[in-house]
């Protein structure tokens, strides 16, 4: 069941009024200032990439609901905001305690690198050397050995990403660079934290963190990306993450988005998988006032496995949009996708999951499931599975359901003495539990569970909490 959406799918697409020149011009002007203000000289190819990106952005402007990819999500509130790039040091008000609140309460055991407003915060980071593993600032690599990044940085924009990725390509200053040498099984998980500060000026701030992860042949690693902001802060975090898995690599990735309630979040993650590599992703979109999340995966060779799990939980007037693409471009690859949504209040959710099985990708095995739980009459979700199968001898399956809390289950729990609010919340947690339960880093799993519980009434009681499997 897919409830009718505000945008009529059959009729003429709604058009936003043409974007005023000033909107895109503002970014051009900003770009000139940005380029002029770069203190470290950048290689010509990077300057060209930035120049191309801003030109493309100027040309395309922000996406509108007239575009297929954006028809459920209007970014007009982002387009009309005059964001400000915070000056270096403005985020220095962000302290260890602020980060700790999103750092899984100190229970996380592993490497942690922290960026504030898109720039490295060395004082908040802690990395211990481990067998050739590199976790560092992208800006650092750019200044020392830029050629290592050349092939990666240009890639996203050529991947047909949106004009938000163009903005990121034009403006990114920093982000994480993670390199796992071939054959290394990284012992401890890696936590990449992207915090947004309140800035020091009145206007909303903007940051464009760029992360590049390269998992060498046969390496293994667990990486967590957290996006969060100082409570109440208004900003746009426009992140791009690029992940490359070389042959036989295994990477388990987790994104925990807990942006402030006034924030915008746009995240684009591109994943390229080599032969027989295994990629697992768990994505939790929990915060922000407007969040858009793209996952674009590609099997670039045979025998890969990909698992995408995700959960979004929204309430009030929050809007959460997830688009995923799994690209079976080669034979003998397996993908499993499970995305769930929980919507309360007047919130709005979108899941568009595209699975592309290209010509010749025989023995493809793909499953996709999307389940949404509506907790209020005013919440609305659009679920669009898109299977495009151009190969034969493949196994593909998808299913999508949207429903309310099971009234029979609710009565069953109440009939045993569980108060209604607790029973409801228990069922909501139970709905989320199979996605949350797949996270294998205990501190991260506990942190997500805690976050969910705090949003739900009636779950203060420890005993009720224990009842969630």
């Amino acid at each position, binding site marked *: 069941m897919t409830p009718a959406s505000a945008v009529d799918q059959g009729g003429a697409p709604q058009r936003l009024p043409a974007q005023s020149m000033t909107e895109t011009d503002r970014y051009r002007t900003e770009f000139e200032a940005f380029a002029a203000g770069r203190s470290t000289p950048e290689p010509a190819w990077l300057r060209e990439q930035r120049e191309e990106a801003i030109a493309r952005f100027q040309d395309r402007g922000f996406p509108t609901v007239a575009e297929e990819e954006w028809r459920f999500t209007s970014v007009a509130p982002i387009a009309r905001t005059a964001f400000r790039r915070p000056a270096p040091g403005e985020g220095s008000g962000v302290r260890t305690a602020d980060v700790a609140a999103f750092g899984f309460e100190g229970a996380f055991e592993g490497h942690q690198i922290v960026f504030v407003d898109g720039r490295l915060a060395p004082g908040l980071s802690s990395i211990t050397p481990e067998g050739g593993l590199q976790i560092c600032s992208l800006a650092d690599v750019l200044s020392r050995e830029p050629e290592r990044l050349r092939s990666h940085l240009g890639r996203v924009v050529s991947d047909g990403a949106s004009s938000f990725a163009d903005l990121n390509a034009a403006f990114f200053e920093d982000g994480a660079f993670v390199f796992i040498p071939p054959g290394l099984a990284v012992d401890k998980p890696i936590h990449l934290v992207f915090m947004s500060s309140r800035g020091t000026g009145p206007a909303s701030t903007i940051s464009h963190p760029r992360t590049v992860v390269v998992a060498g042949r046969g390496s293994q690693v667990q990486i967590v990306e957290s996006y969060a902001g100082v409570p109440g802060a208004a900003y746009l975090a426009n992140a791009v993450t690029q992940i490359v898995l070389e042959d036989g690599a295994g990477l388990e990735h987790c994104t925990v988005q807990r942006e402030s309630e006034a924030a915008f979040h746009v995240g684009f993650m591109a994943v390229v998988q080599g032969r027989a590599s295994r990629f697992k992703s768990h994505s939790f979109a929990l915060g922000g006032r407007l969040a858009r999340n793209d996952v674009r995966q590609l099997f670039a060779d045979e025998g890969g496995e990909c698992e995408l799990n995700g959960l979004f939980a929204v309430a009030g007037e929050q809007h959460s949009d997830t688009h995923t693409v799994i690209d079976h471009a080669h034979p003998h690859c397996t993908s499993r996708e499970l995305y769930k949504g929980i919507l309360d209040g007047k919130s709005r959710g979108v899941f568009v999951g595209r699975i592309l099985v290209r010509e010749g990708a025989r023995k493809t095995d793909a499953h996709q499931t999307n389940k949404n739980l509506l907790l209020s009459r005013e919440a609305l979700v659009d679920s669009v599975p898109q299977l495009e199968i151009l190969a034969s001898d493949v196994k593909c399956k998808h299913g999508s359901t949207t429903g309310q809390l*099971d*009234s*029979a*289950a609710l*009565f*069953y*729990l*109440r*009939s*045993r*003495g*569980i*108060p*209604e609010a*607790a*029973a409801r919340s*228990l*069922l909501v*947690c*139970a*709905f*989320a*539990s*199979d996605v949350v339960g797949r996270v294998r880093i205990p501190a991260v799993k506990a942190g997500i569970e805690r976050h969910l519980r705090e949003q739900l009434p009636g779950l203060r*009681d420890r*005993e*009720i909490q*224990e*009842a*969630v*499997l």
Partner: protein
Amino acid sequence: MLEVKDLHASANGREILKGVDLRVKAGEVHAIMGPNGSGKSTLAHVIAGRPGYEVTRGRVLYQGQDLLAMTPEARAREGVFLAFQYPVEIPGVSNVYFLKAALNAIRKHRGQSELDAMDFLSLVKEKAKLVDIDESLVKRAVNEGFSGGEKKRNEIFQMAILDPPLAVLDETDSGLDIDALRIVAGGVNQLRTPERAIVLVTHYQRLLDYIVPDVVHVLLDGRIVKSGDKELARELEARGYEWLEASAAP
């Protein structure tokens, strides 16, 4: 213990209970029999407080209190228990831990101390034995993937844990094999105490061979048309309900 007076109830605009009268004292076991669709489960649900039923007339008193004014959870805490005809599967919710939360909510309400994990688990061990249910089973998600018979045992297991003064068992015997029926009935008999009242909804005389009722009622088209002792159940087994239908007409 339980007093139902001239109870009329409807669902979705349709009258299902058309004037039910029933009095059950502590220590008694009452059986309610009647054809499919006569309103037995509806009566059980109205007693337990399931939303979706509208009581248009009559009263239900439990230990002198107006049961109909209470939420389902308040009724449970006061000691009303319903063993469901169709126990609900709840993936993601732990059977024992939800039960522990329920028991401690009830104990708190009764002014008893809450049980800690150790005490609770030994209680689980003891009560699981009572209905011969596998301990690993009761620790899984509520009824998820349980067989029909396992679900019914789980209902009696929950009843044994919660120790309610009033238990309404809705067709707990349906779907049980002969051995399971004996075991479940044995479990119920052990819970048959002078303080507890039990209402058994059943289609089969066989259950009543194991759990001998004090009173047998026939519910027909939303009314109790005949009450008697255990011999009435035998008569129903032999003659069916047709001979009673004349008395069901308003």
